[in-house]
């Protein structure tokens, strides 16, 4: 096989077949995939299905702690998990840039296989396209996921009620800062690793301990603020976060201070928010802390009366201010 991706790899001919067989099928190793049919078929348990799709365009492709492949699996797994479903099947669509080293693609694919294995999902079908050099930023990956929601589970961001507690599974901002630390022109170094991780086991554990949980959200782009603002808005309630209780690593704090970033706006790829009724909060917290990736979980706030859909922060000085939503993108500032 070539050492670089060429346009021919996307044209449906022998080179594409070789790429699929020798790289994708060989590495993903799934029996449905191996059949190379245009559609994968599999047994789906009875019940309400949950489906989600997301496209991953992160640059650079490899960053401290993870890569675009791990992100592409974990992101969709986590979105499915927020519905309460166990994620079972994934599809993968690749848009490859002409000239991409095949070794890089292999690394990404192996990373996806490992993440899928950890999450207990099967990658059953895929697609490959190649675009001209100068387009596609190396690789874009779309994943779509399918799962089935167990009976009796009904979650929604519109179910939050005053008095509910808000749990966060761990430290904020790790992923966003890990990625930004690689951007040229910013030149700083940290030990911060992306937190990209599959959280379906955590969600299942929390649901087990607190079956009345209202909803889950993974605070990805737009950070904690976007996730909370969406819930507040959908449920027609207000939310207040206790600033002192939000876990943030020192290095992330330092990087945010240096760049002028708001840690509430920074993306996370391995964290989960849970909104649970007050009487189930302690059990939910215990379950979260006992689950993989949840050891730093905290109760960070609660749902309060008010229909404005506002999210507030109680600062350490006893003042209350608004947690605003990110507008546009965060850029490093000097002011």
């Amino acid at each position: 096989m070539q050492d670089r991706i060429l346009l021919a790899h996307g044209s449906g001919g022998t080179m594409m077949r070789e790429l699929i067989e020798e790289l994708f099928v060989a590495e993903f190793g799934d029996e449905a995939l191996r059949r190379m049919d245009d559609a994968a078929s599999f047994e789906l348990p009875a019940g309400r299905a949950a489906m989600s799709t997301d496209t991953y365009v992160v640059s650079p492709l490899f960053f401290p702690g993870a890569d675009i492949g791990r992100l592409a699996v974990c992101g969709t797994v986590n979105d499915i998990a927020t519905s309460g479903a166990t994620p079972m099947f994934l599809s993968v669509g690749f848009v490859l840039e002409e000239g991409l080293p095949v070794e890089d693609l292999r690394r990404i694919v192996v990373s996806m296989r490992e993440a899928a294995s950890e999450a207990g999902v099967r990658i059953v079908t895929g697609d490959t396209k190649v675009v001209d050099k100068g387009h596609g930023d190396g690789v874009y990956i779309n994943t779509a996921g399918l799962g089935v929601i167990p009976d009796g589970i009904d979650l929604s961001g519109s179910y939050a009620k005053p008095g509910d507690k808000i749990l966060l599974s761990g430290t904020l901002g790790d992923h966003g800062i890990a990625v930004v630390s690689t951007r040229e022109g910013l030149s700083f170094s940290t030990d911060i690793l992306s937190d990209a991780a599959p959280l379906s086991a955590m969600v299942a554990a929390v649901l087990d301990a607190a079956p009345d949980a209202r909803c889950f959200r993974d605070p990805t782009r737009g950070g904690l603020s976007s996730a909370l603002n969406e819930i507040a808005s959908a449920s027609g309630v207000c939310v207040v976060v206790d600033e002192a209780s939000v876990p943030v690593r020192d290095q992330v704090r330092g990087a945010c201070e240096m760049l002028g970033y708001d840690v509430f706006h920074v993306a996370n790829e391995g964290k989960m928010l849970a909104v649970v009724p007050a009487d189930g909060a302690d059990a939910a917290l215990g379950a979260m802390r006992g689950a993989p990736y949840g050891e730093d979980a905290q109760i960070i706030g609660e749902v309060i009366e008010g229909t404005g859909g506002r999210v507030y922060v109680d600062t350490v000085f006893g003042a209350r201010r608004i947690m605003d939503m990110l507008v546009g993108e965060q850029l490093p500032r000097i002011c």
Partner: protein
Amino acid sequence: MCLAIPAKIVSIGELNMAEVDILGVSRHVSLDMTPEAKVGEFVLVHAGFSIQVVDEAYAQETLETLKQLDIVGDEIGPPDAAESDA
């Protein structure tokens, strides 16, 4: 004005460049404006430059004074009258 944060000088290299540490984040900054800064001192970092050495003794003193502030009546201006101006 603008964002400047205290960072500890970890090492000083050539051409007045130093490696500094901010809560575990390390960066290279220019010491052009603080040529006398030493390893172990804290400097204010702005736009990739150290703009001042932070006087830890003053910091300590200020905090101590504020901690003992009487709710009514205490003057908390600088103890040294020569600092202020009328």
